[in-house]
C-alpha cells in the first residue's frame, strides 16, 4: 500500500518535473534554445554514466576485497552456469543496455531536432572560412571580421533575442565553426554549404574557434562573438557599412 502510494507520488513528481523542464526550455515566443536542450541532455547522460559506472566499479572493488586468495594454492569457486542461467546472463544485461540505449537515443533525437530546426524569424549570416581567418556577411551585404595579430575587427556581432542561423562554406580547406558558449559546432568545407543556429539570450562576449585542423595557424583562427542589444546592433551595422564603403 505504502509502496503504491510512493510510486504514485513519484510518478506525479516526475510529470510535474518534466513539464517544468519543458516549460523552462521554451522561451516566450516558443523558440527552444539548443543550449538548454544540451544542458538538459548532458545532465541526464551524466546521471546515467555515474549509475552504470558506479554499479560496475562498486561490484569490482567489493569482489576484489572479498575474494582474495586465502592460500597460495587456492583456486576459484565460480558457480557453473546452467544453460538457462547462461542465457539469462546474456539476455537480461542486453535488455537493460538496450533499454538504456533507446531511452538515450529518444532523448538525443529530441535535442537534435531542436538543433536542426531553424526558427523562422532567424537572422541569416554567411560565414566563410579561410586560412586563417573568419569572414561574416550579413543579410544587407555588410561584412565583418577579425585580425588575430592586430586584434582589430569586431568579429561576429549579433543582436540579443534574435535567433541567428549561419550558412557556412570554406574557400580553401576544412574549417569548423566552434562556438562553445552556445554549444554549437559544424564544419565548413569547399563545395558544400552547412548550417547551424543559436539563440543569444543576453549580452555576452565569447569566441568562435576553428576546431577542424587547417594548418599552421589553426589554433590562432578565432574571432570574438558579441551579443549586443538589438538597437545597438542596428547602429553597429550602419556604422560598419559606412566603414566598409570608405575602405
Amino acid at each position, binding site marked *: 500500500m505504502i509502496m503504491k502510494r510512493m510510486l504514485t507520488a513519484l510518478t506525479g513528481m516526475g510529470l510535474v518535473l518534466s513539464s517544468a523542464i519543458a516549460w523552462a526550455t521554451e522561451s516566450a515566443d516558443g523558440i527552444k534554445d539548443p543550449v538548454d536542450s544540451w544542458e538538459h541532455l548532458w545532465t541526464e547522460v551524466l546521471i546515467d554514466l555515474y549509475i552504470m559506472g558506479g554499479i560496475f*566499479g562498486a561490484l569490482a572493488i567489493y569482489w576484489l576485497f572479498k575474494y582474495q586468495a586465502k592460500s597460495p594454492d587456492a583456486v576459484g569457486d565460480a558457480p557453473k552456469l546452467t544453460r538457462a542461467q547462461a542465457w539469462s546472463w546474456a539476455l537480461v544485461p542486453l535488455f537493460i*543496455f538496450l533499454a538504456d540505449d533507446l531511452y538515450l537515443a529518444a532523448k538525443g533525437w529530441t535535442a537534435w531536432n531542436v538543433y536542426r530546426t531553424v526558427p523562422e524569424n532567424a537572422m541569416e549570416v554567411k560565414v566563410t572560412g579561410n586560412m586563417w581567418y573568419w569572414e561574416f556577411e550579413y543579410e544587407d551585404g555588410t561584412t565583418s571580421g577579425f585580425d588575430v595579430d592586430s586584434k582589430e575587427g569586431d568579429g561576429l556581432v549579433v543582436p540579443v533575442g534574435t535567433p541567428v542561423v549561419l550558412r557556412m562554406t570554406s574557400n580553401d580547406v576544412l574549417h569548423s565553426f566552434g562556438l562553445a558558449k552556445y554549444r*554549437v559546432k559544424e*564544419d565548413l568545407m569547399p563545395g558544400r554549404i552547412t548550417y547551424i543556429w543559436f539563440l543569444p539570450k543576453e549580452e555576452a562576449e565569447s569566441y568562435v574557434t576553428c576546431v577542424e585542423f587547417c594548418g599552421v595557424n589553426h589554433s590562432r583562427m*578565432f574571432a570574438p562573438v558579441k551579443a549586443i542589444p538589438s538597437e545597438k546592433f542596428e547602429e553597429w551595422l550602419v556604422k560598419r557599412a559606412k566603414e566598409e564603403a570608405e575602405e
Partner: protein
Amino acid sequence: MSAHPEKFKLSEWIFTTDHKRIGIMYLIGSIAAFCVAGLMAILIRIEQSSLGPTLASDAITAGDQYNQWLYFHGAAMILGFLIPGLTGFAANYFLPLMIGARDVAFPRINALSVWLFLSGIFVALLGFVIPDAPDIMWTGYPPYSLLTGGNTAFYVFTVHLLGFASILGAVNFLVTVIYMRAPGMGWNQLSMFVWSTVTAFVIQLVFVPVLAAAVTMLLFDKYLGTHFFDPSAGGDVLLYQNLFWFYSHPAVYVILLPALGILYEIVATFSKNPIFNYKAAVYGGMWGVVLISGEVWVHHLYVSGMPNWIRIGQMISTLLISLPVGLLAVSLFGTLYRGAITFELPMKYAISCLFLFLVGGLTGIPLALTALTLHLSETSFVHAHFHYIMGIFAAFSVFAGVYYWFPKMTGKMYDEKLGTIGFWLNFIGVNLTFIPLFKIGVEGMPRRYWNYEMFPQFEIWHMVALFGALFILSGMSLTIFNWVYSAWKGEISIDNPWRSKSLEWTHTVNPPGPGNFLKDVEVSSDWTPYDYGK
C-alpha cells in the same frame, strides 16, 4: 631448462620464420614507435603548459613544429604501436602456443609481414630527417593534406606498408586458427585471446583495403592530378572522411578486442576462475562487435556536414555498440566473482584496465549522441575519451601482457618492486593528465591547439596535465628499464609461476624452443584453458 642455449646471432633473427621471434620483433618495433611517439606527447604537453609559444620564439614556428609532433604522435601511436602491438606481438608469440600449433600456417609470409611492419616504422621515422615533414594529423584530411607543403607521400606509404603487413597477418592467423588447432580442440575450447585475435583480424581483413584505397586516392590527387577530393573539379571532400573512418572506426575494435583478450587471460589466471559466460562473451560480445563495427563510422563525422538522417541512424547504431561491449564487460567483471584473487603485477595492470575501460567506455556514450557532440566534438573531452579507451587502456593491456608472459618469453622473472613503482607512476600519471582534459573539454577547450589565448582560464589545467605526463615519463622509463634489465640479468623463473592452465604455460618450457612443444599436443573434449577445477 633453456631451449635456446646458443649465443645471440643477428642473422638468425633477420632470417627467422619462427613465430616467437617474429612476435618479439613486433614487440620491439612497436615499443620503439611508442617511445618516440611518447616523447612527442611530452613535447606537446610542454608546449601547451603555458599560454604563448613555449618551445618556440614565434607563432609560425610553434604552429609548424606542434603540428608535426601531433601528426607523428597520432600516426605512430595508432599505426605503429597500438595496432601492431596488439595484433602483432602477442598474437604471433602466443596464439600458436595457445592452440597447440608448432608455428603459424605460413611462416615465411609471417616473416614478410614483420619486415613490412618494421619498414613502415622506418619510413615513419624518416619523417624526422626530411625537410618537409608531414603535418596532416594521423587522419590526413583533404584538402589540407593536398595543399600542404608537408610530405603527404610519407604518410601514404607508411599506411601502405603497415596495411599490407596487417592483411598478410590476418590471412595467416585466420588460416592458422582454422586448420592448426591441436587435435581435439573445439571452437568453444579456445582461449579468449585467440578469439579476440580472430575477430580483430576479420575486421582488419574486411576494412584495411578501404583505408588503403582512401590514402591511395589521396596520393593520386596530390601527385598525379586526379580530383577525387577536389570539389572545384567535381570531387567531394567528405568522400575521404567517409572512406577513412569506414576503416578507422573498426580499427578501434582491432585494438580493443585483443586488449580485452589479454585482460581475460590475466583476470582468469589471477582469479583462478573460468571465463564467466564464455559463449555470450565470444559469440555475443566479440562477434557482436565485429557485426556492428562497420555501421558506426559516421559518429566521427557528426559535425562534418553529413545529412541529418544518417547522423540519427548512426547515433542509434553507435549506441547499440554498448550491447556487445556490455556483454564483454559483464563477462570480464564476472570472472572475478568467487575467484581466488592474487595481485601480482600483471593483475595490477589488469585491474587498472577495468577502471580505464569504464571511464573510457562510459565517456563514449555522450559522444554517441549527435546533439551532445555539437558541443563536445573536437574538444579535449574527445581527446581524453579516446586516450582512456584506445590509448591508455590498450597500452596498459600490452604492458600487462608483457609482464604476464615475461617469464615465458625470457625464462627470467621481472623485478616486482621496480615494476610496481612504475605501475603506480603510470596509473597516477594518466589520470592526472587526462581528467583535467575532460573538464576543460566540456568547458570548450578545442583539440590540437597550442595557442589558447582566448581561453586563458585553462592554463592551470594544462600545467596539471604536464605534471601527469612527467609521471608517465618516469613510470615508463622504469617499466622499460625493468624489461631490458630483467631479460638480461633477472632471476631464473620457475616454469609456470602463475599456475595457469593455458597450453602456453602447461605444455612448453620457458622460453619455448623451435617447434614449441616437446611432443605433439592433444586435448580431450572436456579440456579448457581455464580449468582450475573445484
